[in-house]
């Protein structure tokens, strides 16, 4: 994709990204075909990996690209789960149809919530989002009709589907959410709004003075993330078939999102993918040691923030300058000799872009 | 042996170099002025001496001891006090508390609270007021008083005439010889060249991070200053 301009073309794709695009299509196709070749436990793990990846990408969109650190996204995840209970269990709506509706419900709730939490800034915004999530948790914990504190089961809502069909659709939805969240973040960052979002992260004052409507951008990103979290929440409880306020609104949802993004590489699209892989490897490796995997994860995140704030992908990028999801617009002066690359040191005249 | 000897001092903001091999000396009981256009590196130089910017260890020697790159709070303990650009009084502290914090290291010496009240009587009347709830001139007096409270052997003054009416500037500069008499040398950055030439024993001119002129005021003609100032 390039546009001709008087003194150069604007290019985004890198060799890595062309290769990356191809690989992504192959992977998505392979995952989507799992119901035919994969066995059940592998499918369940892949489903879980993909919806956690979606959560991590959405958290990263807000914090890594927008500078908005929320520790209350589990609030919208919980809402997604409970709207599923309302629609599928109480009103008899097909659970798989209900999943997107749960996302919309979470987004609707996010609108008034945004008006409240955006009165706070920085660390206070973070704790404010947590309080909001607690308000949601306590609200549902007091609705007897939806199972109150002990929660409720969703199995009776699943009767309309055979086992194979249920697991296949669940997997496809997970693939849609995992790949969809990456596509959403990628396309959004390549758009005008992406420019504004990263501008706000770097300097809110300068963004305003250059015509960026800061509150509107923050609001859109907040509601979009809520929509994603709501859908993931619904999918989670389609698979778990049992929901309770303490589980649906558990802070550990946010802990996993944050640690995956921080360890993998905050502010990049590749980072959360690596972070989620590490999370699953660590959880399996320490599976029979109780909560030690969470302790190890927390420790890794703390070490990352101190020693490598740009995470593992940050280290790789500094070393090899690979970009699978190139968002940066680069000027290429005709003919195909690109301008010297920015980044670490001084741009030297003869430095060819390292692919 | 001079009180302060700066030799081949470089300074950087990230990969942007602001000072190029600066050399300068301040003798015991001397008043040295530094002039130069905006962005010539005057404040950067003062911040390096005060320890707010990284510097080569032996690039700055105070009273025979290398202090280059030492942490700011230890340099103050050795007797180098600073009156920062824009005065920077502490808003949530009263005038008296601002002066007391100046004596945080408790270095022995002639300067006490009463001596400062006598030097700047108007401050005594305003002692309970918050540090920033005063006029520019009064704030400047408090900032100088605060630096004196640490009983310095060398006081670094960054643009003390900044934004002040000439009559107030004259009053401030009138107080400085009294300070020197108490055994405190001065290194003064001054935007107002006339004021600098009147007060200083020796003058250095900075231009684009380099010393372009050094000498006694009497030897410096307007043309040499203009050339050093603008680099024509």
């Amino acid at each position: 994709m390039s546009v001709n301009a008087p003194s150069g073309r604007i290019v985004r794709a890198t060799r890595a990204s062309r290769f990356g695009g191809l690989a992504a299509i192959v992977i998505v196709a392979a995952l989507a075909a799992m119901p035919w070749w994969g066995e059940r436990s592998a499918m369940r793990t892949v489903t879980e990996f993909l919806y956690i990846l979606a959560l991590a990408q959405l958290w990263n969109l807000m914090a890594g690209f927008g500078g908005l650190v929320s520790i209350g996204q589990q609030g919208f995840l919980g809402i997604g789960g409970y709207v599923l209970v309302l629609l599928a269990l109480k009103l008899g709506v097909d659970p798989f149809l209900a999943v997107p509706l749960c996302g919309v419900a979470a987004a609707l709730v996010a609108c008034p919530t945004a008006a409240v939490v955006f009165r706070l800034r920085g660390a206070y915004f973070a704790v404010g989002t947590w309080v909001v999530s607690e308000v949601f948790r306590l609200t549902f914990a007091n609705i007897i009709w939806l199972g109150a504190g002990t929660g409720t089961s969703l199995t009776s809502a699943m009767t309309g589907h055979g086992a194979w069909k249920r697991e296949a659709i669940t997997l496809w939805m997970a693939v849609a959410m995992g790949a969809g969240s990456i596509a959403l973040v990628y396309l959004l960052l390549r758009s005008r709004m992406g420019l504004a979002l990263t501008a706000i992260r770097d300097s809110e004052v300068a963004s305003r003075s250059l015509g960026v409507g800061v509150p509107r951008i923050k609001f859109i990103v907040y509601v979009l993330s809520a929509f994603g979290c709501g859908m993931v929440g619904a999918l989670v409880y389609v698979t778990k078939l049992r929901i309770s306020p303490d589980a649906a609104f558990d802070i550990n949802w946010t802990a996993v999102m944050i640690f995956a993004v921080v360890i993998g590489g905050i502010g990049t699209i590749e980072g959360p993918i690596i972070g989620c892989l590490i999370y699953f490897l660590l959880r399996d490796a320490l599976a029979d040691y109780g909560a030690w995997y969470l302790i190890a994860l927390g420790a890794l995140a703390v070490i990352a923030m101190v020693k490598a704030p740009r995470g593992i992908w940050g280290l790789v990028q500094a070393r090899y300058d690979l970009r699978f999801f190139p968002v940066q617009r680069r000027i290429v002066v005709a003919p195909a000799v690109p301008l010297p690359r920015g980044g670490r040191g001084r741009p030297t005249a003869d430095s060819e872009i390292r692919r | 042996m001079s009180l302060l000897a700066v030799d081949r001092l470089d300074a950087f903001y990230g990969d942007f170099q602001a000072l190029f091999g600066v050399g300068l000396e301040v003798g015991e009981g001397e008043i040295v002025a530094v002039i130069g256009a905006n962005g010539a590196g005057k404040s950067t130089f003062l911040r390096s001496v005060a320890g707010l910017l990284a510097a080569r260890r032996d690039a700055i020697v105070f009273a025979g001891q290398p202090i280059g790159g030492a942490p700011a709070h230890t340099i103050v303990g050795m007797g180098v006090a600073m009156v920062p650009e824009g005065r920077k009084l502490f808003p949530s502290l009263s005038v008296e508390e601002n002066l007391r914090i100046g004596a945080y290291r408790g270095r022995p010496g002639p300067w006490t609270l009463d001596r400062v009240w006598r030097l700047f009587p108007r401050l005594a009347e305003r002692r309970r007021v918050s540090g920033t709830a005063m006029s520019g001139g009064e704030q400047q007096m408090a900032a100088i008083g605060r630096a004196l409270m640490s009983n310095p052997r060398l006081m670094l003054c960054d643009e003390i005439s900044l934004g002040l009416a000439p009559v107030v500037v004259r009053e401030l500069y009138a107080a400085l010889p009294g300070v020197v008499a108490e055994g405190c040398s001065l290194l003064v950055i001054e935007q107002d060249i006339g004021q600098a030439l009147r007060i200083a024993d020796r003058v250095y001119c900075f231009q684009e991070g380099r010393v372009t002129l050094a000498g006694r005021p009497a030897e410096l003609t307007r043309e040499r200053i203009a050339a050093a100032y603008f680099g024509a």
Partner: protein
Amino acid sequence: MDWVSVILEGALLGGLYALFAAGLSLAFGIMRLVNLAHGDFIVVSAYIALFLAQTVGLHPLVAYPLAVAIMGLVGFLLQRGLLNRVMGDDIMPPLLVTFGISIMLQNLLLQIFSADTRGLVGGGLQTASLALGHGIAIGWLPLLTMGVAVAVIGALQLLMVRTRLGLAFRATSDDQTTARLMGIDTRLIYAVAMAVALVVVAIAGILFAIRTTFDPASGPSRLIFAFEAVIIGGMGSLWGTLVGGIILGITQAIGFALSPGIGLLFGHLAFLAVLVFRPQGLFPRTRGA
């Protein structure tokens, strides 16, 4: 429904919340640091006191002060060794590091002490109460907690205003760079500030653990109560935090009286109401004029 004793009890509960909040407000006032592990340190101090009193067998009057001292040391080392490295203009590193610590502490306590609920011995204090006539009685423990809260906040206020350390705290809080020009080692001041904050946290933790049972996951909600008391009271003013705690205590007590499930919800809604209608809190300490 005896509303008088409900409100009185809520007000006294506010003393505990003010103690929760004082440590948070101190750390934010001096260092602009919101410690997301604040609630977990409250629980950690309760477990240390429990360990010293019951496992090691020290008398509570020895074990509890010792636990407070240990927490002070923990605060100093935590700031000096770790948090000072990530402090800076960007608010994200300290936030994420303290969040990491919070998750680590909760799960570490889980592995060491298991998930069973525990309680601290209060020497019969929990049950003793004082009759005020007209059938109204208030417990000795809540009264003592309020007394300790007022004493601690008073002591902190005196420290800030009367002492050399207090001057250094306030100067560093106003302008860290200029404070260094006064000869203040601001990194050391940050460590001392966190030590003081965790001493207050330990006092709160022990009183909280005597009052109710606790388990490794009790931390986060304590952080939220502390945060709400600070916001309701107004950022940066310790006395405002006490009033914020009392208001939070009362709203929760009313909520509990109406129906056990929605006590905390009432508190959160009061917090959100203050946030929307008076974001700067009820008693904001106006920065120097």
